[in-house]
Each structure stands twice: as structure tokens, then as C-alpha cells.
């Protein structure tokens, strides 16, 4: 490393520290802190909801709802549970999947064939999830799964596809899909055990 360059781990630690204190300030109704938090994190969270929803309009509505949740729940953030950006990204993902489930129910009621829509192929990044220690470990454990298992897990995680939809999308029997997922999850859990 060249002298004067910041160690990437140190940069992550400093960023987490700032995000944690911004969340703490949000819990005390500090709107300026919330604006700063938004400016630092919104591109990440927008990327997450856009990846899941694919449509700008839905993603923007969803991003709004996700930040309202962050604002309302900032006081319940616990740093020992998850890094701040992980916590916020998970809120954004859950919000997006809730929206997908809601749309599916509406579509089912109206007989309109709106879902599942096109799914882009590369859901997992080619160069791995190497930003953090946990990312490297998960990357390594995912690498030990069969290609199809990795694919269905990524499709479910990022697209909210159900067992039936995964079976149709990958042209695989339903029972096989269920087995891939269950065994895949069990393998992942064992592999990630400390």
C-alpha cells in the first residue's frame, strides 16, 4: 500500500462510525442528520430496490417508504446486530419484496399477467462480495454450492420468486427446486458457522 493511502478496512470502520452516529441523531429527531444519512446511503439503497423491482417508478416509491422506516426506527438500530448500511439495505430489500408480494396479489385478483417479469441474468456480482469479511465468507460458501442452487437462491433473494415461479423460470420440477433451496440453505448455514 502506498503511503498516505487509507486502509480500506479502516475506511469502512470510519464510515460505519459516522453512519451509526447519524442514526443515533435521527432517533433524536435530528433532520439534518437524516439528510446527511440520506446523502451518504441513498445511492446504495436505490441500487438495492432497483435491482429487485426493475422499474424506476416503483423503486422510487419504495425508496421513500424505506427511508421513512429508517427514520421511524432509527432508535431500534443495534450496532452489535448488523453494520448500519447492512441494516438499512435489509430494510430496503424487505420493503421492495413486500411491494412485489402486494403487486402479485393485485395481479392475481385482476387476472393480469404482470409477473414474473424479465429477470436479468447476473444477480450475483462476477468479482464477488469481497467488501467485507462477512461478504468474503458468504462468497466462499456460495461457491461451494452447485451452480443451479446458487442461481435459485439469488433469484429468490433478489426477485422474490416463489417455488412455483422458480420452477417455471428455470424449467425444473418443483420438488427439485424445493430440494435445491433447502439443501442449499442448510449447506450455507453449516459453512458459515463460526
Amino acid at each position, binding site marked *: 500500500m502506498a503511503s498516505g493511502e487509507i486502509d480500506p478496512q479502516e475506511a469502512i470502520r470510519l464510515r460505519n462510525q459516522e453512519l451509526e452516529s447519524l442514526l443515533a441523531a435521527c*432517533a433524536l429527531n435530528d433532520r439534518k442528520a437524516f439528510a446527511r444519512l440520506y446523502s451518504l446511503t441513498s445511492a446504495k439503497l436505490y441500487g438495492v430496490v432497483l435491482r429487485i423491482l426493475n422499474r424506476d417508478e416503483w423503486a422510487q416509491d419504495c425508496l421513500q417508504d424505506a427511508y421513512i422506516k429508517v427514520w421511524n426506527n432509527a432508535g431500534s438500530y443495534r450496532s452489535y446486530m448488523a453494520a448500519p448500511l447492512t441494516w438499512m439495505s435489509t430494510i430496503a430489500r424487505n420493503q421492495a419484496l413486500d411491494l412485489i408480494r402486494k403487486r402479485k396479489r393485485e395481479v392475481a385478483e385482476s387476472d393480469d399477467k404482470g409477473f414474473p417479469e424479465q429477470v436479468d441474468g447476473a444477480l450475483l456480482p462476477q468479482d464477488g462480495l469481497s467488501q467485507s469479511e462477512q461478504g468474503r465468507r458468504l462468497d466462499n460458501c456460495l461457491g461451494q454450492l452447485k451452480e443451479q442452487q446458487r442461481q435459485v437462491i439469488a433469484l429468490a433473494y433478489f426477485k422474490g420468486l416463489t417455488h412455483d415461479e422458480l420452477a417455471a423460470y428455470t424449467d425444473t420440477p418443483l420438488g427439485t427446486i424445493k430440494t435445491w433451496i433447502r439443501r442449499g440453505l442448510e449447506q450455507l448455514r453449516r459453512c458459515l458457522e463460526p
Partner: protein
Amino acid sequence: MIPENEQLDSNTLAGEYVLGTLQGQERVDFEQRLNADLRLQSEVDAWQQRLAPLLDGVDPVAPPDTVWERISHRIEPDRSARQAPGGFWNSLSFWRNLGMVAATLVIALGLTLMTARQQGLEMDSVMVVLNDHARAGWVVGARARDGFLNVSAVEPTELPQGKVCQLWMEDEQGHLIPVGLLPHDGSRQMRLPTALNAGNRFKVSVEQTDRLPTDAPSDEIVFEGSLTEI
């Protein structure tokens, strides 16, 4: 191939819940179990953490400015009302607080009833659990004939790490029976441990997350109240 009737262990179910493949009635059933089952809650948390690094790999995309404008507009009316001159924390005016209690109560009840109605769950009685600032912390709605409570967080009390608010129901003999943990956010359904009578009292205690009592509150009671018919 796994036979259809094979019992899935709760950990894998928690994984499927977080992954999103647990859907429909299975998902509803699982969420009901989740309300009362602390071990299941920690399994769900663990899965959220295990899989969250998947989100690390997502490239950031700058959202349009209009999103922030709409967010900041949405948080304004709600929170600016709390900003008393001289700062919220210094405002100890009894009347001001009383006014705010009434206002948050109306909002809280409105929200709870609305959510309950959307889910087709008409509540027949409610109770507001006050937080440490004597404002509406949680709203508890009950549907006696189905034997469950719907508990929604409004402005929950902020607790130190490792602490949690536990809800208890007093039976006819005056024994306290644990009902569940008050959520930090969102709403949860909890089963009533015994049939509901008009006079049942409810209490809230602060407990250690890793040492939840099942027979009696281990620490002080921070709230006490009963349901009111609506």
C-alpha cells in the same frame, strides 16, 4: 428428493422466510409463530445477517432529487410538532405533553384500526401502552372471540442493549402470564394465553433479552392498564 411430508426444521424455515420462498399460507402461519417464539425470531435475525452480504455486491445508483423532497415532506408534519421551543428534551410542560399524548393517541389508534381493517381484522377493544415520555408507545388491539392481540409500535421506549419490554396478562386469580415482547417497529400478532374478560389487567415489564422470565416479571412494572371496548 425430499418427501413432501418431511418436517422442515425451524431453522431452514427461517432461512426460507428470509430468502422469500416461504409464501402464502405457510408464510402467514410462520409469521404467527414468529410473534411468540423468541428462538425463531433470533433464527430469522441470524438468516438476515447471513444473507445480507449479497446486497454488498449491488452497484449504487443515484436516485432522482424528487425522492428526497418527498421524503423530507413526509417526515416534516409528523416530527416538527414535537419540536418545542428550547428543544424537545427541555420541554416539561404538562399541558404540552398532554396535548401531544392526545394527538399521538388519535394518530396511533387511526393507524392501528386502519391496518387491522386492511387485514380484515376488526378489533373490538384497544389499549394504549405509554412510553417513557408518557406518550403513546404501542397500541394493543384485541379481538376477543379469536383470542389474539395485535400490537403496533408507535413511539416505543428506547431501551439499552439487551433489554426488551415484555407484555403480561393478569388472569382471574391475579397471576401474570407472559403474552409476548413489544415490537421495536411494525406490528405483531400475539395469541392471548387465556380467554379475555372485561376486567383483565395488562402489565409491561423491562427484561433482559437473554433471560426472559416465564412465571413472573423479574424487574419493575413500567406500565399497567386494561383494554377499552370500541
